């Protein structure tokens, strides 16, 4: 019998509020792609950080190729052939891709690193320009950087913590090719994802965690979505209730919005025309890095360079208003970066409410606005209860939440505001199947109450599930809208490469 590549025995790790891993054991064979499955806050990321040496276990043993190891830090992990792509990326915004990769490597020149990035990128079809500054990259692109960085160390064990949550289906296919190739070369892979079909497609073994404990080990290919869900959350995800869409008056109109990029590697928005009506959910599909980021900055008011009259809410021209002023008109927005933009990592959940909510502030517009601390904590507590968020309490700092739970909290904060217009970027990024169903359910409920919703997502399944109408964004241009009944995966896929001009006249001919 071959020795396992990695063996965990009785790993336990406790944080002040929770036991994130309790007596976890897990075995990965060479060349095996092993899934770790579990609901938000189950302790998956924590376990991976323990293996990678960025957290110290309180108890338990780690065996690598049959030998007991004490991995004290990521550098030792890398030296022992372990590579990891984190759920929250570890890149320095102001440095270029090559410089970021360079940081982790000893004794090579920047030129060499640049060359090896390009080589790896072409080898695995991960398109990236090493000279770009990281802050100009979309989340999807940042992940490519992380993957390349991990591959450069030629790992024997590669850990991927939710790598596909921000990738398009095509990119996921590409990534899977990469991973299969690695596995065939004998590299073991630990793979975390909330997408069951991916796990079934890719993985040959699976360990399920729930509340920090192992609740099952199985071969995912022999399980159904339902049985995996049961192991993971103890139930099957609830089905969504769809009512007929009753679109009302137009809530937001974007007219001929053209906006030059404000950094070298951004995307110019060209003649964007878009409308969202009360009581409908409108989706924007597209591969990340095609102008979504720029469009969302312009819509939310974080970028106020938009030409006069190009963005209206109701009858009001809001193009020059800042995010706070737009929020007072009923526009709430969930950004794709949750740590650092949607939430301040070092502040508590309650304090993070104050970014967009003013209910717990007396006299909000003058005298600086007095914060009623008690009311604020209660408000945060209510959100935590209503959305079943796993957190120590209103005073836990945002950074201590698991990825999915923080995402839930930010979405909850904006949905709970009862907005007139809700703009959501990647609403279910990184949340488990149960929570995803819940968030989609809440969005549908808002729509039925007459809220206008704009969803920007790279996940077509999700858009098809909730949207009434869809646009596609490609290279800074927005397609005409298409009712969901007429949209097909093939058509949207074609539009994603910017080819709607051809198909639109085609349609006209049919009519």
């Amino acid at each position, binding site marked *: 019998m071959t020795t396992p590549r990695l063996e965990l025995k009785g790993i336990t790790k406790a944080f002040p509020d929770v036991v994130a891993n309790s007596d976890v054991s897990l075995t990965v064979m060479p060349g095996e792609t092993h899934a770790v499955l579990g609901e938000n806050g189950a302790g998956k990321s924590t376990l991976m*950080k323990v293996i990678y040496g960025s957290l110290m276990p309180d108890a338990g043993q780690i065996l690598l190729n049959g030998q007991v190891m004490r991995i004290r*830090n990521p550098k030792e992990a890398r030296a022992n052939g372990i590579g990891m792509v984190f759920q929250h990326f570890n890149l320095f915004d102001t440095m270029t891709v090559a410089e970021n990769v360079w940081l982790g490597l000893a004794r090579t020149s920047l030129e060499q690193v640049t060359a090896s990035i390009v080589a790896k990128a072409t080898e695995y079809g991960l398109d990236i320009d090493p000279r770009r500054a990281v802050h100009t990259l979309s989340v999807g692109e940042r992940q490519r950087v992380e993957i390349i960085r991990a591959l450069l160390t030629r790992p024997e064990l590669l850990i991927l913590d939710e790598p596909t949550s921000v990738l398009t289906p095509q990119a996921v296919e590409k990534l899977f090719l990469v991973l299969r190739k690695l596995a065939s070369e004998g590299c073991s892979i630990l793979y975390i994802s909330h997408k069951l079909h991916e796990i079934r497609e890719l993985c040959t073994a699976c360990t399920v965690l729930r509340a920090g404990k192992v609740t099952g080990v199985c071969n995912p290919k022999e399980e159904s979505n339902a049985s995996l869900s049961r192991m993971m959350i103890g139930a099957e995800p609830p089905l969504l209730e769809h009512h007929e869409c009753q679109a009302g008056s137009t809530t937001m109109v974007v007219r001929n919005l053209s906006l030059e990029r404000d950094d070298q590697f951004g995307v110019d928005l060209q003649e964007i025309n878009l409308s969202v009506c009360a009581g409908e959910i409108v989706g924007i599909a597209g591969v990340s890095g095609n102008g979504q980021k720029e469009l969302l900055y312009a819509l939310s008011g974080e970028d106020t360079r938009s030409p006069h009259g190009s963005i209206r809410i109701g009858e009001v021209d809001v193009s020059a208003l800042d*995010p706070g002023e737009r929020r007072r008109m009923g526009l709430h927005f969930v950004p794709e970066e949750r740590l650092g*933009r*949607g939430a*301040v*990592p070092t*502040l508590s959940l309650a*304090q993070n409410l104050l970014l967009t909510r003013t209910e717990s502030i007396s006299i909000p517009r003058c005298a600086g606005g007095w914060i009623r*601390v008690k009311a604020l904590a209660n408000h945060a507590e209510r959100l935590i209860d209503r959305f079943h968020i796993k957190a120590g309490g209103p005073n836990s700092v945002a950074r201590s939440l698991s990825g999915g739970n923080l995402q839930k909290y930010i979405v909850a904060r904006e949905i709970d505001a009862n907005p007139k217009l809700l703009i959501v970027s990647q609403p279910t990024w990184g949340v488990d199947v149960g929570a995803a169903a819940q968030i989609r359910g809440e969005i549908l409920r808002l729509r039925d109450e007459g809220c206008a919703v704009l969803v920007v997502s790279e996940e077509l399944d999700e858009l098809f599930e909730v949207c009434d109408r869809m646009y596609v964004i490609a290279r800074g241009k927005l397609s005409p809208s298409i009712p969901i009944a007429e949209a097909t995966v093939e058509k949207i896929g074609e539009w994603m490469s910017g080819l709607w001009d051809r198909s639109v006249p085609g349609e006209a001919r049919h009519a």
Partner: protein
Amino acid sequence: MPKLKLEARSQPSQMWSYASPLLALACTVAIGVLLFALLGKDPVKGLQVFFWEPVKTGYAVGELVVKATPLLLIALGLAVSFRSNVWNIGAEGQYILGAIGASGVALMANPATGSWIVVPVLLAGVLAGLFWAGLTAFLRDRFNANEILVSLMLVYVAVQVLNFMVFGPWKDPHGYNFPQTKTFEVVTRIPRLFAGSRVSIGIIFALVGVVLVWVFFFRTRSGFAQQVGGLAPAASRYAGFSSRRALWTALLISGGLAGLAGALEVAGPIGQLTPYVPAGYGFAAIIVAYVGRLHPVGMVFSALLMSMFYIGGELAQSRLGLPKSLTGVFQGLLLFSLLACDMLVNYRLRWIALGVGK
């Protein structure tokens, strides 16, 4: 050859991040003892001079408070700045301008003026400090000039303005050509709290300031917005908090408080404008702010500590015949020890053996 390396700790200890100022103080004392021994002085006597003499008598404590007052006032303002990522390191200049402004009004008084004159004297100090910090804010806001450089350079400009005033227009005609103004009228004197001590109402201003800054930081939305701008600029932009407003607020508050400190000083203990007004309080307050963890209550303690160093330095000169610059040495030691302790809270040291294995 083995090499010493710093490694980030995955979870910095909460307890040690609060205890690190105390540990830093202990290190400072230890190095101080060594220093005294090297200088051939009795370390026990040396420590006595720094840590016991300043609190031995009621009068001594009063003196401690007198020196702590300007430090605390300036540090409070700096904490607002630093927490908002606005690096105003020119508080010394704002303090000097405050002193000049207050002197301008004080010189207009005559023996018959009522004691209400104290109010305009202080206001003039505040306004002058505001104006000086406002220059930095304006240059940053309008031309994106680096506020660290601008505020620091303006300190030297302020010193020149001060020199110009005391060598020129405001020189005391009966002062035997000394570069200083006449002694201010008694009515302009900042009221003292007790007979037999130099403690003035300034300390009340400072303590009220502590409460106000605490409320601003932890109970008002504008204070919250101010800090978010420092912690996560993207989140601040997302929330719609104005970064320009944060910049102006930070600089005006710190400028105003530094100006107030300058006014209290010239119209209080000093009683006239001289070239010796700049005593380095503006720079020492940076240390006060950091040792106090930018927390209003913490800064009360660190201000007292720094004031102790000032007094200790003077006593070391008169009692032990050591140079007065020992004050600066102790201040520097404290800051460096704190930085080192903070570093060790967040990082661990490790010997890495190179050239082994490969």
